[in-house]
């Protein structure tokens, strides 16, 4: 609450303010009393105002007066009674729900002011109509809410500020992700109050902002989920079993609803997700779930209000109240004084009360949360295109600087001062380059959290007992890659949980612990990001892979294939079928998609597996897609960049290593293995290249399982280049993945080895009946 209360607060605002009050806050209570009195006076004069509201207001004011007089034996009770009365007025005035339509006061809607930013964190006036307060205060009402209460829900109002809305969407998704992660933590440690607070805060913030933006559908759902969470937070229920599931489903539904709203904001047609009403209903009536009795937890600080808890109010009343989680963070403290811990104004039924661990360590918790919030506040959202532009410009700066430093005037030894200055600038430029690259790095944590969730769901569905361990989730990777890597990982984790880990019975029979383990681990190694996914499941069945590959004619014989080459076969398109082939590629959802995704990220994937012991998938990714480690090669007058990761080795062949098959197919023997030899200058129609392989250089490229040799004139250097697209006018060119600005300011083309190899094979196949390779073919449009 702002220090200076706004000149006039509407009833819902007052109600929410009161809910957060404690009896000792006399000045605030006095202020509220004044506002209530004014409201009361207005209504007394207004004949159209519903009488019962006015009456309740009067009673509430009387209660507050008694409280303010200071001689009450039980101030908390007085305050609560007053609060309840005011709450009742808001719920009876509000259009929906439990009251008869005749008692609706339509003007109230317009009275509810748009909340100021400062009050977003407090329960919003527009939320009040949705609060289940009326339900709890009128116990004789049927507990199932009629569906019509939802009729006024708005998914996405028309006339909202697009920027505000977009900010909300990105903020909401962050909160949802955090909530999801925290809920998973809670499953393992149901008493982790920091996690409860995280979830609570997520729902709460989403609710507040959504309500402010008029997205009542989102707000309503978040509100009811928050109610459930507040019960968990108050120790009334524990976040286990059905409650944990309900919470997770709440998060899921929130995610979907927000997504629907986002779709609508983009101008697409969108509706409330399926099951929305059912879930809201379930959340509202979560107290009918089988109640699990919380084990006694030592009470660090007894909650003073327990003793005075009236039985009239079931828990959900608490829901709209705690705008501020007990472990309050500084930013919420800005809007109102932090009170930690604070008794809930309305208290759960005594028989349901489990001593709440909320107060276990409020100091450390708020300190921790405070730190987290502080770091969040220190960051600025920047549009990625600006970031990309910045990286581009810095790249240009590096080139421009190297042009200056290599200038003959500058490098002349005569001017020591100048070269000193240039070196100094060079240092700054390099720092700047490092910095600009790091700007795009984000931790893998959100991705890992998503995977944790998936593993859990798959395990639950498949009745597997497994633990999912993650390590190194703080490892950073280029922002542009995060989404792209999530997809294959999801696939692999699902496979590992579904097919990799055996059923508990099978595991017991195999003499392994019933609980399977999937370990996801990320770390940096030599300028790469490594992501290892290992499981202790059944492992890959080598024999069956070979059999399958033979049947599918992917290989002609098993001979000469190493173990890892055989495992790589599962990535070959068309390998997986609907028949459960191996433990990992069972469902026919191809592992080739995984490989394709990783290839696109310029990464590599290796498998090692031992039958009965488990499987390890090792993914190696570059830190960023923007920079490619490349080998600069020259062919004639042209220079090309070959990504280093695709090169196995290079050598200058001896005449006896060369041979041709049927006069056309050139081959080079490498350690007894024949490799097809393709001449880059022929493929690209470059003039003036070295024709004699023995005077040139052979670069051995590996493309997954197969390898080939590429003839170039010479290697110039190894360098890191900033990969750029050739632009829409040129589009995608076969065998070229993009361009890069070289040190002299010219554009060098980056080769795409796998498409280069297929281009070469195509050429060879099409020229099988004619002369070897037509040079003109190289300039034909692809």
């Amino acid at each position, binding site marked *: 609450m702002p220090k200076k209360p706004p000149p006039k607060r509407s009833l819902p605002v007052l109600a929410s303010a009161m809910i957060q009050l404690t009896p000792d806050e006399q000045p605030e209570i006095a202020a509220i009393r004044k506002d209530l009195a004014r409201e009361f006076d207005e209504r007394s004069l207004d004949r159209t105002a519903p009488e019962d509201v006015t009456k309740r207001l009067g009673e509430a004011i009387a209660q507050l007066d008694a409280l303010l007089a200071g001689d009450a034996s039980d101030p908390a009770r007085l305050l609560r009674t007053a609060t309840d009365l005011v709450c009742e007025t808001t719920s009876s005035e509000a259009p929906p729900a439990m009251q008869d339509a005749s008692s609706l006061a339509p003007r109230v809607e317009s009275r509810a002011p748009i909340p100021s930013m400062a009050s977003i964190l407090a329960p919003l006036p527009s939320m009040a109509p949705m609060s289940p307060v009326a339900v709890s205060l009128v116990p004789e009402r049927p507990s199932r809410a009629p569906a019509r209460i939802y009729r006024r829900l708005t998914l996405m109002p028309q006339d909202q500020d697009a920027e505000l809305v977009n900010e909300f969407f990105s903020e909401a998704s962050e909160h949802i992700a955090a909530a999801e992660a925290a809920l998973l933590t809670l499953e393992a440690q149901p008493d982790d109050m920091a996690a409860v607070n995280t979830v609570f805060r997520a729902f709460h913030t989403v609710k507040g902002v959504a309500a402010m933006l008029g997205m009542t559908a989102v707000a309503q759902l978040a509100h009811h989920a928050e109610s459930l969470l507040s019960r968990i937070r108050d120790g009334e229920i524990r976040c286990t079993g059905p409650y944990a599931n309900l919470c997770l489903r709440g998060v899921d539904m929130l995610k979907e609803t927000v997504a629907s709203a986002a779709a609508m904001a983009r101008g697409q047609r969108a509706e409330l997700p399926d099951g929305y009403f059912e879930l809201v209903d379930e959340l509202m009536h979560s107290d009918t779930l089988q109640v699990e009795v919380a084990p006694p937890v030592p009470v660090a600080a007894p909650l003073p209000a327990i003793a005075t808890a009236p039985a009239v109010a079931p828990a959900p009343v608490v829901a709209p109240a705690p705008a501020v989680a007990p472990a309050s963070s500084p930013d919420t403290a800005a809007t109102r004084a932090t009170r930690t811990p604070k008794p809930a104004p309305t208290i759960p039924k005594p028989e349901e009360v489990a001593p709440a661990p909320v107060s276990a360590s409020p100091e450390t918790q708020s300190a921790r949360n405070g730190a987290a919030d502080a770091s969040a506040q220190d960051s600025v959202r920047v549009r990625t295109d600006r970031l990309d532009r910045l990286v581009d410009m810095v*790249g240009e700066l590096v080139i421009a600087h190297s042009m200056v430093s290599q200038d003959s005037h500058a490098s002349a030894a005569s001017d020591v001062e100048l070269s000193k200055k240039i070196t100094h600038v060079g240092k700054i430029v390099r720092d700047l380059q490092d910095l600009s690259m790091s700007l795009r790095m984000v931790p893998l944590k959100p991705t890992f959290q998503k995977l944790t969730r998936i593993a859990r769901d798959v395990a639950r569905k498949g009745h597997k007992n497994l633990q999912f361990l993650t390590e190194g989730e703080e490892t950073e990777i280029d922002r542009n890659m995060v989404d792209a890597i999530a997809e294959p990982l999801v696939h692999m984790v699902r496979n590992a949980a579904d097919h990799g880990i055996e059923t508990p019975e099978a595991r017991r029979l195999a003499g392994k612990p019933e609980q399977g383990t999937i370990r996801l681990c990320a770390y940096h190694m030599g300028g790469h990001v490594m992501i290892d996914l290992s499981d202790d499941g059944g492992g890959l069945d080598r024999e069956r892979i070979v059999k399958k590959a033979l049947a599918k004619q992917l290989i002609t014989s098993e001979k000469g294939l190493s173990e890892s080459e055989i495992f790589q076969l599962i990535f070959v398109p068309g390998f997986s079928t609907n028949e459960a082939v191996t433990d990992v590629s069972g469902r026919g959802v191809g592992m080739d998609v995984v490989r394709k995704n990783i290839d696109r990220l310029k990464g590599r994937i290796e498998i090692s597996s031992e039958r009965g012991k488990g499987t390890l998938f090792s993914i190696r990714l570059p830190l960023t897609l923007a920079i490619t480690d490349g080998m600069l090669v020259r062919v004639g007058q042209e220079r090309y960049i070959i990504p280093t990761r695709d090169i196995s080795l290079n050598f200058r062949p001896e005449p006896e290593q060369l041979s041709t098959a049927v006069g056309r197919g050139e081959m080079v023997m490498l350690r007894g293995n024949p490799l097809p030899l393709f001449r880059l200058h022929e493929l690209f129609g470059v003039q003036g290249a070295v024709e004699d392989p023995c005077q040139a250089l052979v670069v051995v490229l590996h493309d997954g399982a197969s390898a080939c040799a590429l003839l170039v004139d010479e290697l110039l250097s190894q360098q890191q280049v900033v990969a750029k697209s050739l632009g829409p*006018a040129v589009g995608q060119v076969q065998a070229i993945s993009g361009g890069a600005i070289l040190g002299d*300011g010219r554009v060098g*083309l980056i080769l795409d080895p796998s498409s280069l190899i297929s281009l070469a094979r195509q050429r060879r196949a099409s020229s099988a009946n004619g002369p070897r390779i037509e040079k003109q073919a190289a300039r034909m*449009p692809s």
Partner: protein
Amino acid sequence: MTEPANLESENSRAAGKYLTFVLAGEEYGIGILKVQEIIGFQPITPVPGVGAYIDGVFNLRGKIIPVIDLRVKFGMQRQERSRETCIIVVESRELRVGLVVDAVSEVRDVKSEELEAMPNLGFEAESDYFLGICKANGKVRFLLDIDRVLATEDILALRRL
């Protein structure tokens, strides 16, 4: 031409400032608003496997820009680069492209009375490229509709890739 009023409005629409340049001795013009900049000839990296009129790509302050040889695009003989050779960077429908021309001449204010419609020369596709002819000081200049030049099927196909 049967309706002079129509022609009139057509002409006044085509009137305005044009950047004129030379291709094989003929003079052409591009609407000045389409032109982003003119730069001397740059080293161009050829891209294999694309249309022959795409000369390649070059580095324009960190951006990779494709270059189209207008001579080749119009079916003329390719010419050796000289000191006069220029690249005119144009933007057409968010596509930034460099055009190789023999030489840049001037920026000319084309008045509507100097404009004439392009006669039908018999080759259909190319006639589409022209907004009209500007006749002044005894010289003929062909005014190009650069959007159309760059929107022909082959380039559109490249875009879709």
